[in-house]
């Protein structure tokens, strides 16, 4: 057999060098792309918040304001904000915990056809094979939500967790070594956890939309107590900051925002807080 031979590279060192030069980005290119991604992410976050504001008929002033931070007229009505969304960008799936966000994602994709590619491009590190000819491995809920053309499944937010769970960057090696046999019970627990989290957060959001800060905070307290390491912790912190603002508890709101910033310095939720009492004048507050 020619096995032996074919286990060796086909490309010569020179070939590789040639190709290598064309496939490698410069640091500048990487940085530029990073900036572009940042802009798109910001747009996503803003868009999601906006449509969420629209979806809850009476949006909380804070959410809408934060959402429209790039728009001059600060979201007096959700629809005004929606105008901004058109040019702002695509939806943020994190916010899919509120059904409104799913709408956001879809609407936003109209404005950002590129995101469609990314959406349909999500793949599972599924064990079977590289899906060479058989397309669409497992369509992930997150992608489904992002698919402009497809109807929104009611169960989306909940299924979103079924996505593959990649390892932490730093922990990758470690995790590779780790055995992967998680018992079935653990899997279902996770699903239950998420739906529990969703329920509480949704409740908090609705309360917030009504302007009922204390009910919102109650729901968020329950969330924090039950799911201290919950998947939607960032969401919860963001909502808490808004609720605290609503309640006039500025200092606490700021502490909450700071906590969120510590956990996720790049969290899109921070953008939503930008115009709330939690983050505005942060500079003054710090000094």
């Amino acid at each position, binding site marked *: 057999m*020619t*096995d032996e031979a*074919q*286990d060796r590279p*086909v490309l010569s060192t020179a*070939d590789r*060098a*040639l*190709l290598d*030069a*064309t496939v*490698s*980005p410069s640091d500048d290119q*990487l940085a*530029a*792309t*990073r900036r572009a*991604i940042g802009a*798109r992410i910001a747009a*996503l976050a803003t868009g999601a918040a906006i449509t969420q504001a629209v979806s809850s008929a009476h949006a909380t002033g804070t959410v809408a304001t934060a959402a429209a931070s790039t728009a001059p007229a600060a979201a007096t009505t959700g629809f005004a904000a929606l105008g901004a969304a058109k040019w702002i960008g695509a939806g*943020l*799936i994190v916010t899919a915990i509120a059904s409104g966000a799913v709408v956001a994602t879809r609407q936003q994709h109209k404005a950002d056809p590129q995101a469609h*590619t*990314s*959406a349909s491009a*999500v793949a*599972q*590190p599924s*064990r079977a*094979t590289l899906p*060479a*000819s058989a*397309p669409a491995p*497992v369509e*992930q809920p*997150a992608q489904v939500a992002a698919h402009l053309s497809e109807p929104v499944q009611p169960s989306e937010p909940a299924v*979103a967790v*079924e996505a*593959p*769970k*990649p*390892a*932490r*960057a730093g922990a*990758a*090696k470690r*995790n*590779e070594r*780790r*055995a*992967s046999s*998680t018992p079935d019970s653990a*899997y279902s*627990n996770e699903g239950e956890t*998420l739906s529990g989290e969703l329920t509480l957060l949704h409740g908090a959001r609705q309360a917030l939309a009504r302007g009922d800060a204390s009910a919102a905070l109650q729901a968020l307290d329950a969330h924090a107590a039950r*799911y201290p*390491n919950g998947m939607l912790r*960032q969401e919860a912190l963001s909502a808490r900051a808004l609720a605290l603002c609503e309640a006039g508890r500025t200092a606490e709101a700021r502490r909450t925002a700071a906590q969120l910033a510590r956990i*996720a310095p*790049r969290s899109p939720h921070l953008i939503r807080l930008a115009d709330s009492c939690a983050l505005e004048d942060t500079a003054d507050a710090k000094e």
Partner: protein
Amino acid sequence: MVKEAIATAGALELHGYRPAASGVVPATSATREPVPAFDEVYAEHARFVWRVLRGMGVRESGIDDAVQDVFIVVHRRLHEFDGQHALSTWLFAIAYRVACDHRRKHKRLSTHDALEDDAPEHVAGDTPSPADNAEQAQRLRALHEALDSLDDEKRALIVLAELEEQTVPQIAALTGISVNTVYTRLRRARLELQALLNKRGSR
């Protein structure tokens, strides 16, 4: 050796991986680490993603968008993270899909047109002479054409094995294909690539 063993373990682990279709979610929230910083992921893996996309045939003109697409997905889904799989596995899967989409989209473009924006100036080297440049450009074109003729999977295997210089166990871990299957398919891909290059060379 040790490295290989680790990579093998990764591959095996992937083999035990349950696809999301079955409606399962690995790991409990109790074991979850905080959501990793997006910037960290980008800083560590953007170059890899970029190279994979380019290697898979995304052109210079489309690479920025393609990398953005990958990381928008990453950003959107990062919170779903649990540490069951190597981040690179996940990233590769996303990049692979983006690249395949791209390939399909651009299939109609003739190879010649598609390669127009891969200017020979991009070729590295110690200030090669114009003659070298021309020769290199021609060779590069031949390589691209040959790679373009491979199907998605074969191309991916070639890219990982020959450009990214990943070992077979590492490729298995990245792709979720078993080590033996990677060996078999990679061998096939190499034979085909060799044949394509030979054919072209003899023209």
